[in-house]
């Protein structure tokens, strides 16, 4: 299609063609300028910085080529972060989706008051990382916290939730799951509402019971939603920061040092902006692969209107 097809009025007045040409760019201008300044330029700047060692003010000082990347992939600290992050994904993503699915199944029944329960189940949507983490920190308190009290009631030994390296990542994960549960819930319930009711009716006529309806109708019909939730959940888990910063500062012994927290420390506590940039670009790579998977395999799921 030629791009000159304009309105009849404009076509009859050639001297307006400059305006015609300029017009779309005026509409795009504000966005382009801002995205250019705060996304494209910083992206290039990050790539540039990642090949340098910097001073404390972030000025590139010593060109090191790909050394920062090589270092990142060989230093135990960064590798530990990667491992911790993968473990964190395994702790939080499947369980979060499962819980979201259960809540959605419960609240999707056409019973009185289900709208009220839907509102409650989506409530974590409005809870920020900071407030959620503070509440759980209180409950995790090893001495006066509620969780240890509940354990003691059922006769179990106390747990040092955030201080014990064997428990800390799990404890942080629990908060993340709760914070994400509202989102997983609304995702799952909108998936459930898109399953045609006739399928269930037909199954009932054929004598399928509840469980086999779930297995043979609900889950297959929901699989694009579950896939979408999984990819988005993994991407999100790779970007978790606040919970760690507030509750554990990456400790104990680096056991909760998720990758974004690691990058944060490298850049803003150690002032190694070059190596931090390299690490952030590695994170970008991971997320790019995940996003690509999402768009390629989950295309069907991205239409909401």
């Amino acid at each position, binding site marked *: 299609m030629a791009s000159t097809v304009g309105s009849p009025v404009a076509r009859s007045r050639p001297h307006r063609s400059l305006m015609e040409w300029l017009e*779309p760019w005026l509409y795009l201008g504000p966005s382009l300028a*801002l995205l250019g300044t705060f996304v494209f330029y910083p992206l290039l700047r990050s790539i540039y910085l990642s090949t340098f060692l910097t001073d404390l003010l972030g000025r590139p000082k010593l060109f090191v080529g790909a050394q920062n990347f090589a270092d990142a992939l060989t230093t135990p600290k960064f590798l530990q972060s990667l491992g911790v992050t993968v473990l964190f994904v395994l702790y939080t993503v499947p369980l979060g989706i499962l819980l979201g699915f259960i809540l959605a199944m419960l609240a999707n029944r056409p019973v009185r008051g289900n709208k009220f329960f839907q509102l409650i189940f989506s409530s974590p949507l409005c809870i*920020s990382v900071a*407030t959620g983490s*503070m509440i759980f920190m209180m409950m995790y308190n090893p001495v006066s916290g509620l969780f240890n009290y509940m354990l003691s009631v059922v006769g179990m030994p106390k747990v040092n939730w955030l201080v014990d390296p064997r428990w800390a990542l799990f404890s942080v994960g629990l908060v993340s799951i709760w914070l994400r549960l509202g989102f997983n819930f609304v995702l799952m319930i909108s998936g459930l509402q898109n399953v045609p009711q006739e399928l269930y009716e037909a199954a009932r006529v054929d004598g399928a019971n509840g469980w086999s309806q779930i297995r043979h109708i609900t889950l297959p019909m929901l699989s694009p939603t579950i896939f979408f939730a999984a990819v988005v959940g993994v991407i999100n888990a790779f970007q978790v920061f606040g919970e760690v910063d507030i509750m554990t500062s990456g400790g104990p012994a680096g056991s909760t040092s998720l990758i974004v927290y690691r990058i944060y420390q490298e850049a803003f506590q150690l002032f190694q902006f070059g190596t931090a940039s390299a690490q952030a670009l590695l*994170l*970008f790579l991971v997320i790019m692969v995940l996003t690509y998977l999402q768009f390629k395999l989950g295309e069907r799921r991205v239409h909401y209107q």
Partner: protein
Amino acid sequence: MSSKDRLGQVLGYAGLILAAAIMLFPLAYAASTSLMTRAEVSTFPPPLIPADPSLANYAELFRAVPVFRWLLNSLVVASAVTLGQMVTASLSGFAFATIRFRGKALAFALFMSTMMVPWEVTMIPNYLFFRSLKLTDSYTALTLPFLATAFGTFLLRQFFMQIPRDLEDAARIDGCSRLRFFWSIALPLARSGLITLGAYTFLSTWNQYLWPLLVTNSKQMRTVQIGVRFLMNEEGLQMHRVMAGVVFFMIPAGLMLLWGQRYLVRGLMAGAVKG
């Protein structure tokens, strides 16, 4: 109704109530703790409900830290970002949806590609940029990087594309300029898209954590989220006071969920495709 159906219904309700209780428990417990006295919080076992509920912790909180200033900061930042995104994204979404021009496909691809770039990658240069301009601790630093949005552009473009082409042609023939068409016809028609974007943007900006943590140093410029984070240091480990802050700062976002659940949910789900 058979007895089996009735049993199913009872079990269904039991499940709903149990799940709701578990999900709301942390919030209820925080609210309850915020009404306790210091003595109560430090007893073991910890009480679930204050014996003598009082708002003293809130009064103490308002006295000890600039709560209303933080609230104002968060309101200013979230409103500015929301408004800014609505303006920039409706302009660019409109152009992509209704104008034909050379380079459109490339420009659109460029826009969409920014959705792939995670915030963590651009955060370091952006931070250095604002610091070199001595603009940390300013509303500029808190808002400027977020005033444009590829996601919002994409979202609103979908809405503008639903406007019949004939409608625009008719308006143009009647002498309506494109800008006027945009302002008085297209924008009102895309209203629900704008609200969706607005609700999503406001809430996610309100809850933002890492960027305000980086660019605010002075106590006066903290947003609510950063304020809450450092209440711990201010108040030692006096959790009953900290919880007063937590509960207080949760109210605006909670109201938002009550008011615009439908829009918020739609926005969040569409927004989830962002990297």
